[in-house]
């Protein structure tokens, strides 16, 4: 059975070449395309980040003008959030969820194709906005009014890109919910599902709930810009602060959209390499659900400096701190899973343990930012930049790398190179901390974010961060090499590629044939 090639398993004539990828409805093809797309976006967002860091290497203006710098910070955020992190997780979901629950494909295969192919046009609109008169939007990734109401036509392109990406996300999310709820193999009860499916199910609900709110917010900006409405225009009776409320009603669940699937990936990897079942499976599920529910009640902690009454500040402060409880449950469970386990540190495990270490640091700085009186001090400083890069880069991105190294044998049929993977990990880990750890000190000393120039006393830490950023950026090319080498060849991967990996995905051959589970698997 191991020698069966995907072509032999094809029950029909699939088009080849470009048309295969354009018209494919296969969840594995679509998952691959999502991941390739997000890696391209990751590199383009990375180039923007490195331009920013090159400018900030020294005080004064050397590399770019302030207007372009503002476009870069804005687009770096938008590209990384909507182009890199979110599609990468959807790619993982497409590839792995049907394999994990024993389904033959996603519930709506044609819609799946559509939700992917909406992304490239959106990305072209977004990146292309650099080349229109006035350049790309420079209002910050949060697109706060009134700035976003005043921007040039690059803003309109960004709004349409967000609309399209939002529709794509919602379609993807609906597909995932229906697949998880209806397409499970007989005997795969909800509480037997791998945690990755659980975290994605909850994430998908979050997406369906909040992506439309973002679409509404940017639609209001659009009508304020062109059709004479005054949602956010104070002269017409609107209120710019209201934009922040609507945006963060989306924005806070959004940060959990970007981290919950990461929790899922790590919860798959830690038990495999600790050779123990996940500690506290049920509590993990409930913790994920409570994080999701609480995420709707904390949005205004992004807005402590807008002049909220003290009662509001206290409510949002305590609600935010409450989220530390379910998150703490998760970290505790991962550590308890590793406790007295037969640990081995292959590349995926290194990334997962690294994730726990640095993500927890980001979580703690998040708690510090949650304290209203401190937040008013660090609002819009590099402390916040350090915080959200610790949770987004060291959190989401490290988990994505962990998952990629973990499932690459299943995707390609070859084991990824341990040497390259470990080199990638250690370079990323060290350079990540060189880049972002000094930013805490910069922020505490009062360096504002989104500024191309800075006072002389910030020079040393900025130079350090810039060196780290270039190291981190170049380290990601190791990943590219590792993946290409893994696709081209390498040690053959067994069906169960890692010694004690559990789950249905490890019962199909590696690489996973084009069609899997056309007959329902038997769940013990």
């Amino acid at each position, binding site marked *: 059975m191991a020698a069966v090639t995907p072509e032999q398993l094809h029950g029909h004539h699939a088009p080849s070449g470009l048309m295969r990828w354009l018209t494919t409805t296969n969840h594995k093809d679509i998952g691959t395309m999502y991941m390739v797309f997000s890696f391209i976006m990751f590199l383009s967002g990375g180039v923007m980040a490195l331009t920013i860091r090159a400018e900030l290497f020294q005080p004064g203006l050397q590399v770019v003008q302030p207007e372009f710098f503002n476009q870069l910070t804005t687009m770096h955020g938008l590209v990384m959030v909507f182009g890199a992190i979110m599609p990468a997780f959807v790619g993982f979901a497409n590839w792995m969820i049907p394999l994990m629950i024993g389904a033959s494909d996603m519930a*709506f295969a044609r819609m799946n194709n559509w939700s992917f192919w909406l992304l490239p046009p959106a990305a072209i609109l977004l990146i292309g906005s650099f080349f229109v008169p006035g350049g790309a939007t420079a209002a910050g990734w949060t697109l706060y009014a009134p700035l976003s109401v*005043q921007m040039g036509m690059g803003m309109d392109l960004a709004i349409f890109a967000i609309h399209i990406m939002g529709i794509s996300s919602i379609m993807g*999310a609906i597909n995932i919910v229906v697949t998880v709820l209806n397409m499970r193999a007989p005997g795969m009860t909800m509480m037997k599902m791998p945690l990755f499916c659980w975290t994605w199910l909850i994430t998908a609900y979050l997406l369906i709930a909040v992506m439309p709110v973002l679409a509404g917010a940017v639609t209001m900006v659009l009508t304020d810009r062109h059709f004479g409405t005054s949602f956010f*225009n104070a002269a017409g009776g609107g209120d710019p602060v*209201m934009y922040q409320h*609507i945006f963060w009603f989306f924005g806070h669940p959004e940060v959990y959209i970007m981290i919950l699937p990461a929790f899922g990936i790590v919860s798959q990897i830690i038990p495999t390499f600790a050779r123990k079942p996940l500690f506290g499976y049920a509590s993990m599920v409930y913790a994920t659900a409570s994080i999701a529910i609480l995420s709707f009640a904390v949005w205004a902690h992004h807005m402590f400096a807008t002049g909220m009454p003290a009662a509001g500040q206290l409510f949002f402060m305590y609600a935010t701190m409450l989220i530390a409880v379910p998150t703490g449950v998760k970290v505790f469970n991962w550590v308890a899973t590793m406790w007295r386990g037969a640990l081995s540190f292959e590349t995926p495990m290194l990334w997962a343990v690294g994730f726990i270490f640095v993500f927890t640091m980001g979580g703690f700085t998040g708690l510090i930012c949650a304290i209203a009186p401190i937040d008013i001090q660090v609002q819009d400083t590099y402390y916040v930049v350090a915080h959200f890069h610790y949770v987004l880069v060291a959190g989401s991105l490290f988990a994505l790398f962990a998952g990629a190294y973990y499932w690459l044998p299943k995707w390609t049929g070859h084991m990824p190179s341990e040497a390259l993977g470990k080199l990638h990990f250690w370079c990323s880990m060290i350079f990540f901390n060189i880049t972002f750890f000094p930013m805490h000190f910069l922020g505490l000393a009062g360096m504002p974010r989104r500024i191309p120039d800075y006072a002389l006393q910030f020079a040393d830490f900025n130079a350090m961060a810039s060196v780290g950023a270039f190291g981190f950026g170049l380290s990601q090319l190791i990943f590219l090499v590792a993946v290409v080498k893994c696709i081209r060849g390498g040690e053959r991967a067994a069906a169960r590629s890692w010694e004690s990996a559990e789950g249905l995905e490890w019962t199909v051959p590696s690489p996973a044939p084009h069609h899997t589970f056309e*007959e329902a698997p038997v769940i013990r």
Partner: protein
Amino acid sequence: MKPRVTDSLAADNRRLLVRLALSAVVMFGFGFLLVPFYEKICEVTGINNFLRPEAEAGAQAANTQIDTSRSVLVQFDANLHDLPWRFQPVQRSVSVHPGELVHVEYEVSNTRPEPITGQAVPSYGPQLAGQYLRKLDCFCFAQQTLAPGEKRIMPVVFVVDPALPTDVNTITLSYTFFELKGRNTAAGGAGGTS
């Protein structure tokens, strides 16, 4: 082999799809519902009272008292950032009493044969004086589009808040004009939309 996706499963899937798609549409509406909801909360709690500014009129009346016991020198400065215009204050400085309504003018002209849109950004020296300098009208509130060769006299109307700390005797009000590329077709620039 019997297909795993049976008709009844496909129907179940479609029902769930419709329900989830509807909830997405409802959430889109909910985003707009947040607008009146937000205004209502502001009204009930009395915070951020942008719907009834007259409710705060009492507080503003106190600020119109002219404090003739002291005077503050307000200096004017004009800068251009990569903009082929000429831009200067009509008067270098004025001496004002806190609370007094002051009207000054800036002069700007476009030296180029094409229309250009710019936006002025104010800054203050000392920085803390910014919050005490109440601008009632300012050309910096709107984008300015100048026709080729056009010359324009633009007003700034302001009040220096009597609460200004007494150790501040001189305030510098500095404007820098930035070009807004891509908005050159906007007429007049009022309202900031094209």
